[in-house]
């Protein structure tokens, strides 16, 4: 039975508060692309992936890889909500010795599925895992989230070419299409449109959804699961900075932490 949307929305709101607090406390980090990815990652962990908080390394589990590793606050918060990471330590983000490193690091937090941070690599990791799972006959599925700026990296297209070639229907790529990267709007830095057409041309079963709409996300994940013989790419249209009025669609908050005043304002909005 799917979890009621209202419940997922409540989790999402808590996660958004965590993101603001973690990055505000750290004084550095990437709020915009963390906030844009909240609904997708909440849906995956709380109402889709086959995972067990009591058994993080269960061999038959599904996996999630955050290829856009700079958005790790959203992942840390969701994992903590789910019980795969300690909640009380979230505000040690980016501090020396913290399990919550500036980018996901399996050495510090083994319940992560991969260390990421250098853009363009996560899809390859996911596909390699998919090959191993198929070879071993495991039912695992691997989900990997890429940024829209990230897909400017050439390696993404090397891996995009190989997924359908190897017929890896146990891998799902999700592009967080929020339209903004560090230096500004994606269309002004290096246009990636038409995005869905590109993935289709590479042989992926490709869907476009509103990446903040829980039922739409669930439906897309179900469609990906029932698609055989090739991988699925979900192009998720999202809003950078979603949920905090002054961060929405604002390139400044790709990689800038909120000031203490901005943090207070943001947390008020997320009551």
């Amino acid at each position, binding site marked *: 039975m799917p979890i009621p949307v209202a419940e997922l929305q409540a989790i999402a709101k808590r996660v958004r508060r965590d993101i603001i607090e973690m990055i505000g406390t750290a004084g550095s980090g990437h709020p915009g692309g963390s906030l844009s990815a909240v609904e997708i990652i909440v849906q995956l962990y709380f109402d889709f992936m086959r995972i067990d908080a009591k058994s993080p390394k269960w061999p038959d589990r599904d996996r999630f890889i955050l290829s856009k590793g700079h958005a790790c606050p959203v992942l840390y918060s969701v994992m903590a909500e789910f019980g795969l990471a300690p909640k009380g330590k979230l505000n040690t983000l980016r501090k020396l010795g913290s399990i919550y490193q500036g980018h996901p*690091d*399996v*050495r510090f937090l083994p319940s992560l*599925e*991969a*260390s*990421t*941070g*250098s853009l*363009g*690599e996560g899809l*390859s*990791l*996911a*596909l*390699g*895992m*998919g*090959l*191993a*799972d198929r*070879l*071993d006959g495991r039912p695992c599925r691997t989900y990997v989230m890429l940024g829209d700026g990230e897909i400017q990296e*050439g*390696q993404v297209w*090397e*891996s995009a*070419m*190989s997924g359908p*070639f*190897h017929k890896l229907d146990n891998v799902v790529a999700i592009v967080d299409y929020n339209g903004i990267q560090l230096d500004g709007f994606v269309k002004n830095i290096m246009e990636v449109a038409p995005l869905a057409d590109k993935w289709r041309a590479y042989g992926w079963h490709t869907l476009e959804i509103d990446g903040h709409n829980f039922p739409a996300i669930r439906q897309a994940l179900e469609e990906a699961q029932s698609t055989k013989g090739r991988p699925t790419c979900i192009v998720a249209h999202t809003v950078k900075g979603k949920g905090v009025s002054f961060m929405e669609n604002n390139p400044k908050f790709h990689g800038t932490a909120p000031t203490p005043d901005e943090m207070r304002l943001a947390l008020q909005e997320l009551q």
Partner: protein
Amino acid sequence: MPAGTKFELKPGPATREAFGRALVELGRANKDVVVCDADLSKSTMTVYFQKEFPDRFFSYGIAEANMVAQAAGLAYAGKIPFAASFSAFVMNKGFEQLRVCVAYPNLNVKIVGTHSGISIGEDGPSQMSVEETSLACSLPGFVVLTPADEVSTKALVHAAAAHVGPVFIRTGRPKAPIIYNGDQNFEIGKAVKLLDGTDVTIIANGLLVAEALRAAEMLESEGISTRVLDLHTVKPLDRDAIRRAAWETGAIVAAEEHLVDGGMGVRVAQVVAETTPCPMEFVGIQDTYAESGTPSELLDKYGLLARDVAAAVRKVLARKRR
């Protein structure tokens, strides 16, 4: 091997050929061994594995970055991937992925570079790899191997598979003379003393091991007693063998088919400086790119023959006596 023993160098296959054969043995022994290829299986000799284990052989096309990162994904999920290409391509085009996807999480990935050095011949510098020892050694946690012949290559490929962690194996294109009989034991991180001597030590690896043995024979007729070490493991170094060479012979020549800058020799020099400083000379490729030519023409022109090793020994001994 006592001083004065003459080495019989017999013709042998290329080290890449030995790698391809050893990979099939590994495939039979362990179902978790898988192979990643970037359109060079007939050159890297992973084609033997592909023929016997097509389901465990993954073709990536000419896309080394994706190949290396997918090898990391395979290792995360419990496989023992061997990803092979020309050294020049896998190490340079895949370096970023070796750093972040493989070395940083310390995954059990084996990278095999073939066509290393200038002895590939006619294809020229774009295909020649002369910097990958330096690159591989700069990756924390990596084991870096440069075997000299068929026997040592096979043994070290098996040792690499048994080692848990990332390994780079450097192999070559041309046929390599056989140095070892089947009795020799090979251990990662342990140099092999091929000849003992008292005046000087030649520390070599890869193709230069055979040249070092030939040089030792030339020097013997001049009354110079030469120790020869096969330093097949460049990382981690056999610090004890290096320290003993410096202490017991007082002069060292390092010889490798690689740029001197960042190569095995400078790593040896660090250990010498840290333990027992002594004069050293370095045989290798100087600060340049080579060119097309036959392998023997190139080894001659770029100073990688026994003659060049012997000249370096005379030079280092002159400094030792001063």
